[in-house]
């Protein structure tokens, strides 16, 4: 039995060029959803946009119209730029090695993008009295992290606050707002990082004893957009194989 309430809807997925975002695009299309996808990294079928830039977000909105589902995946431990759109993910970063420039760039890539995109599209969802917004937090915001650096964990913690606040603000308008906090999801870019090939000891310490796959996340996005997510709002859904089970 397919998930109810998806077929014929429209979705906008940000950060869609690779990894989790690309998997979400495939899954939502498979459910019969018309998907618009965007990324700072130019790739076939994607609208290229730097979502840290309000002008780019406004241009995107002219092309994207009013999506029913807004999936804010854009972000990551390494902030992309217009010249380096898919930067390598660095190794473990200590506090004293986080430069102010990197702090600002990672906060912008992970938190400002979600703020600008929500601010652009929420008014249209309100006018329709329907919408589902799914933001991306991280296990780094839930339990802390010894890998990705304090800037990324702080930005993703900000996503959780943004999500809860928008859930309260947009709830009366028929819009749900939730976050997904992925654990260790072995995308090609993660696998290429210094810490990206997790030790067997780490993997075996997870209750489900495996790394996550992008498809594991895409299924939860589909669930939240479907009838099953109709009364879920303000929640942060931990998808991590049992690494961290919530506050």
């Amino acid at each position, binding site marked *: *039995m397919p*998930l*109810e309430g998806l077929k014929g809807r429209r979705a906008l997925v940000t950060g869609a060029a690779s990894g989790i975002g690309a998997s979400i695009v495939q899954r939502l299309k498979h459910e019969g959803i018309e998907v618009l996808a965007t990324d700072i990294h130019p790739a076939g079928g994607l609208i290229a946009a730097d979502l840290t830039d309000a002008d780019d977000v406004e241009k995107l909105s002219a092309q994207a119209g009013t999506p029913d589902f807004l999936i804010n995946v854009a972000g990551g431990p390494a902030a992309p730029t217009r010249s380096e759109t898919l930067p390598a993910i660095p190794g473990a970063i200590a506090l004293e090695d986080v430069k102010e420039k990197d702090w600002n760039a990672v906060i912008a890539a992970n938190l400002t993008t979600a703020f600008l995109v929500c601010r652009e599209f929420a008014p249209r969802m309100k006018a329709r009295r329907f919408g589902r917004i799914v933001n991306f937090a991280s296990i780094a915001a839930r339990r802390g992290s010894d890998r990705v650096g304090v800037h990324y964990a702080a930005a993703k913690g900000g996503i959780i606050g943004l*999500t*809860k606040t928008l*859930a*309260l603000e947009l*709830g*009366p308008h*028929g819009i*749900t*707002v939730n976050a997904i906090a992925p*654990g260790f999801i072995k995308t090609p870019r993660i696998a290429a990082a210094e810490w990206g090939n997790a030790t067997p000891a780490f993997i075996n310490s*997870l*209750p*489900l*004893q495996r790394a*996550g*796959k992008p*498809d*594991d*996340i895409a*299924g*939860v996005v*589909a*669930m939240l957009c*479907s*009838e*099953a*997510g*109709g*009364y*879920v*709002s*303000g*929640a*942060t*859904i*931990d*998808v*991590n*194989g*049992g690494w961290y*089970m*919530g*506050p």
Partner: protein
Amino acid sequence: MKVAMVTGAAKPDSIGHEVALRLLKEGMQVSVADLYEEGFPSLRQCTCLRCDVSDPDSVQAAMDAVISRFRRLDVLVNCVGGSWGITRKDLLASPPLGFRGLTNCSLDDWRTIVAANLDSVFYCARAAAPHLKKQGGAVVNVASVAARRGIPPGSEGSSGPYAVAKAGVMGLTRQLALELGPFGVRVNCVAPGVIASGRLKRVMALTGKERGPEGPLATIPMGRVGTVDECAALIVALCTDDTSYMTGVTVDANGASYAA
């Protein structure tokens, strides 16, 4: 064919009833364990078993019946619960009036409510575990927003012991997830807010429309109660591969009333 067991599914206006029907649509063989035999005719495609989930022997007998008939178990959904209507003699009773908090409930209230809401999940999980471990599967428990924030004094139709028992269900979910994860069994939980089930209708018949069992409805940011369909769809999604990398998690479904 996958085999599922759902507790607390016989009342036609309950979340569990809708879960059982949806698991059938997923192509599973569905067994229902409930005290409310009068509801069994509404579940003709299910195997309905009379079971008192607060009695471990009754739970084991129901599980034995499922295994002897279907030879396997893939999914267990623990929907049974509530602050009233949970023993055979008061199944169809109206909710008792007045707030039963921890400081003014009777010891009998405490024991009955904890038995139906928490002990029951423990008994069912223990009876199911050896069968689930054989090929992997999923367990979904049902807690409540009451487990997150307690029951405000003055609320009708719910109780302090219920809030505590449901918090226990969330802890049980995490513990069971750790124990069963290595066998490919995922264990998750849904914590509903106010849902438009028959139980809510029976409370509102006594209290008027403006108050639900967990406080005034006007305070729900989404401005409405949840539907049985939404809640059942979420429970079923936690039984399927859509949530293949989730375990130990409680998903709140409360219209933004409480964000954990």
